[in-house]
């Protein structure tokens, strides 16, 4: 009997132990080939197609060294949580790439080997206010090529996957494609010269656009006097704000396109950046207006000079006089509806900030198709650029919707025909003479009349949107320059260049926004209240202005001897104003109270419903059921 009991017990314990081992093993094995379903709206935890494509290109083994301070005390909570998310994402990369990607996690403690390695890799520790030095960066290496992300800023979280994929793509490509930029604006910066220094002036930094482009491309400036633009050298040519380009240059651009070169044209009917003194005297013309007239005519494109789009659906609040916000419908805060969601260039961009943009009109020439990339809403109209620039108030007052969506960025695809059917435009008379004529003739024979194959050109009717102020915010974080996007502008531009430069994988990666999800109901309540405050404040301002006017009138009426003493009328006037002021203040206070009360009431209702509502229902249901049952039993 005793033996049997022991046997049973042993059998049971052994069985439990075996089951335990089996389950642990099963969990381990399952961990190797995990499957996952990402139910988040933006597929936050799934690598985008572009990243997968880039990982697919790895031909060998890429190593990522992830440097992260692990100390409980040193690492601030925010950075720690972010580091975890970075690790999660790296795990995703590893999952997709398999053995082609190795992720090494290192904790660079002071005076450790890991710290030396971090320094060698160019990953920098950041000194916090607490005096602790923390690391949160990584280095990516592939057969001798190395790219470092010195410090991963939580601010750039929405671009984390993009940064990682771009860095991986960076080590994979041996040579960066070359992008040529022809411009009349000082986007490459202005170096400081001694003359300027004497006059107390500083040079100008290049636009952030350039430094961002340089991370992926070999960027070269192309002078308007260029003899020939080599489509083999320049994968993409960006023509930015072409002001009165000589026919010869337009011809070179024309031939570049016909030979298959990719072209991005940014023109502007009213460039703010230009009128602010950034113009190039070499190419001087009417300030702020640019066009590629000859080529546009050949392509069937028009753009009205000096006229910009005002859109009541996408206005921007600007700081106006006296710090009062002012609405300007000509500074477009474009949202997703304005962007072509079916096109790779715009599909991943969620907003654009475009000041004083022109509209692209006309009908594309035979053989060309037009794809609208960005457009205004139908609640828009064309207005004079200089009026729009002065103040948005007038536009709002006199707004009359044209009822038409106006394209402001398009792509033309198809077989392009030359804008110079007679061949290369003849040079200035200096080159005249029989020899020169011969030369010109032979060249014109070489010139192409039609594109060899289908090509594409992108045209955007604004240049200001690429200026730093409309793209990014530059912060100084512990001595490091941190650039954070304030709009999708840079992303949009980079997408264009990348699509044309050949490798379009990165287009599918950029900006997977982890959207914030505010309580819209309360935001609306606050916005409504704010509107009411504004009208009260305006009322007060109006009465203040009136009082001041009346006081000065009374001042003039006073007799000479009375200068220092206020007349009874003036005193009365001031008294009345004070009364009015206190009344409005009281009303403002009331409004504020009302807003607080409304929000509190809403919160209270929701709290009550959630905390007590359902329990009360369940309790009532239970009691009801109990009573019914008792009644039934009693009847028996």
């Amino acid at each position, binding site marked *: 009997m005793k033996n*049997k*009991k022991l046997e*049973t*017990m042993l059998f*049971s314990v052994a*069985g*439990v132990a075996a*089951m*335990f081992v089996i*389950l642990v093993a*099963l*969990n381990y094995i*399952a*961990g190797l080939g*995990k*499957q*996952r*379903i*990402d*139910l*988040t*709206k*933006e597929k*936050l*935890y799934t690598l985008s197609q572009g990243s997968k494509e880039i990982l697919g290109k790895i031909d060998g083994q890429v190593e990522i060294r992830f440097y992260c301070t692990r100390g*409980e005390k040193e690492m601030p909570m925010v950075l720690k949580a972010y580091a975890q998310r970075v690790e999660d994402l790296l795990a995703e990369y590893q999952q997709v790439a398999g053995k082609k990607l190795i992720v090494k996690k290192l904790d660079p403690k002071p005076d450790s080997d890991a710290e030396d390695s971090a320094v060698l890799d160019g990953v920098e520790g950041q000194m916090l206010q607490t005096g602790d030095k923390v690391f949160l960066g990584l280095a990516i290496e592939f057969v001798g090529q190395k790219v470092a992300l010195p410090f991963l800023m939580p601010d750039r979280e929405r671009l984390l996957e993009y940064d990682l994929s771009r860095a991986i793509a960076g080590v994979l490509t041996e040579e960066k494609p070359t992008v040529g930029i022809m411009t009349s604006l000082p986007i490459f910066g202005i170096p400081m010269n001694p003359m300027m220094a004497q006059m107390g002036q500083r040079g100008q930094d290049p636009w952030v656009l350039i430094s961002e482009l340089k991370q992926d491309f070999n960027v070269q400036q192309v002078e308007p006097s260029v003899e020939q633009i080599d489509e083999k050298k320049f994968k993409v040519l960006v023509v930015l704000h072409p002001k009165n380009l000589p026919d010869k240059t337009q011809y070179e651009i024309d031939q570049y396109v016909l030979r298959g070169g990719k072209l991005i044209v940014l023109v502007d009917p009213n460039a703010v950046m230009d009128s602010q003194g950034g113009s190039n005297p070499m190419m001087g013309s009417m300030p702020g207006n640019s066009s590629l007239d000859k080529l546009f005519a050949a392509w069937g494109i028009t753009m009205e000079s000096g006229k910009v789009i005002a859109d009541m659906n996408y206005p921007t609040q600007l700081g106006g006089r006296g710090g009062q916000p002012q609405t300007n419908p000509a500074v477009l805060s474009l949202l997703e509806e304005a962007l072509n969601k079916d096109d790779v260039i715009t599909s991943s961009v969620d907003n654009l900030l475009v000041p004083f943009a022109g509209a692209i009109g006309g009908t594309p020439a035979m053989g060309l198709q037009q794809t609208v990339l960005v457009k205004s809403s139908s609640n828009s109209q064309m207005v004079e650029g200089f009026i729009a620039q002065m103040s948005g108030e007038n536009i709002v007052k006199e707004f009359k919707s044209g009822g038409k969506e106006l394209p402001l960025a398009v792509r033309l695809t198809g077989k392009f025909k030359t804008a110079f059917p007679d061949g290369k435009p003849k040079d200035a008379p200096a080159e005249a003479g029989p020899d020169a004529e011969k030369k010109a003739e032979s060249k014109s024979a070489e010139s192409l009349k039609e594109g060899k194959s289908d090509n594409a050109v992108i045209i955007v009717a604004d240049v200001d949107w690429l200026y730093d102020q409309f793209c990014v915010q530059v912060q100084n974080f512990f001595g490091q320059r941190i650039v954070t996007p304030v709009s999708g502008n840079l992303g949009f531009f980079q997408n264009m260049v990348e699509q044309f430069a050949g490798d379009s994988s990165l287009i599918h990666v950029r900006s997977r926004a982890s959207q*914030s*999800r*505010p*309580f*819209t*109901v*309360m935001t609306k309540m606050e916005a409504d209240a704010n509107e009411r405050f504004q009208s009260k404040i305006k009322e007060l301002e109006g009465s203040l202005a009136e009082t001041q006017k009346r006081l000065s009138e009374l001042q003039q009426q006073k007799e000479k001897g009375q200068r220092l003493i206020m007349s009874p009328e003036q005193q009365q006037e001031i008294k009345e104003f004070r009364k009015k002021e206190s009344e409005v203040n009281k009303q403002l206070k009331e409004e504020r109270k009302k807003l607080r009360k409304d929000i509190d009431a809403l*919160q209270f209702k*929701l*709290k009550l*419903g*959630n*905390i*007590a*509502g*359902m*329990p009360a229902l*369940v*309790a009532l*249901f*239970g009691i009801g*059921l*109990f009573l019914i049952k008792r009644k039934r039993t009693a009847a028996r």
Partner: protein
Amino acid sequence: MNSAWRHIWTITKRELSAYFSSPVAYVFIVIFLLLTGFFTFMIGGFFERREAVLSSFFMWLPWFFLILVPAVAMGLWAEERRLGTIELLLTMPITAWQAIVGKFLASWAFLGLALGLTFPVVWTVNYLGSPDNGVIFCGYLGGLLMAGAYLAVGCMTSAITRNQVVSFILSVVICLFMILAGWPPVTNFFIGVGAPNWLVETVAAFSVMPHFESLQRGVIDSRDVLFFFSVIGFSLFTTGVIIRSQRAG
């Protein structure tokens, strides 16, 4: 096989109707709803976050379940043993496994109902903003799986003893271990005292928290789901072994 499921279904139905024929079920649900509502809105700072997310709701679930699930599970077998009805149950034409799975499913469905009745909070965030309902769904799935894991542990402790209070306390202790094992303050403590990495990781692997948190992000990962089902499977298997050994003894 079909008859096995029919037997399990019969037990499940019987147990479920038994829940609702006594006031205990209503009291339990009311307390659970009051607690979740109070903690989400008054302590979790739901409105203060001003974001349409349910993190202030899900963060308390492991702790509520820690107390409430063992309370549901404590009577499952202990009461049968105390009253002697276990013998009666096991002499019926059903196997011990069918009885165990049937009882477990009934309690799990009951907990699922209690969790489901918190839906006004989902309606509330949808009214106030536009939340990611995929994430919310995953959070609920995680909550349900966690409740199942706790419940299975409760089944096991309930089978060990005929005293419900002992079962409750044992169950709470095991579930608390399962929360704390992977909780950063605890793992960091282990690292601090010089425990080797593999040991810390092994202990942490038994924790429900990383798996629950992983689900809360909005991702259904096969490893997380398998973990919860492993805990349920193992605990129910052990319950079976215990009941079997008692009957044999």
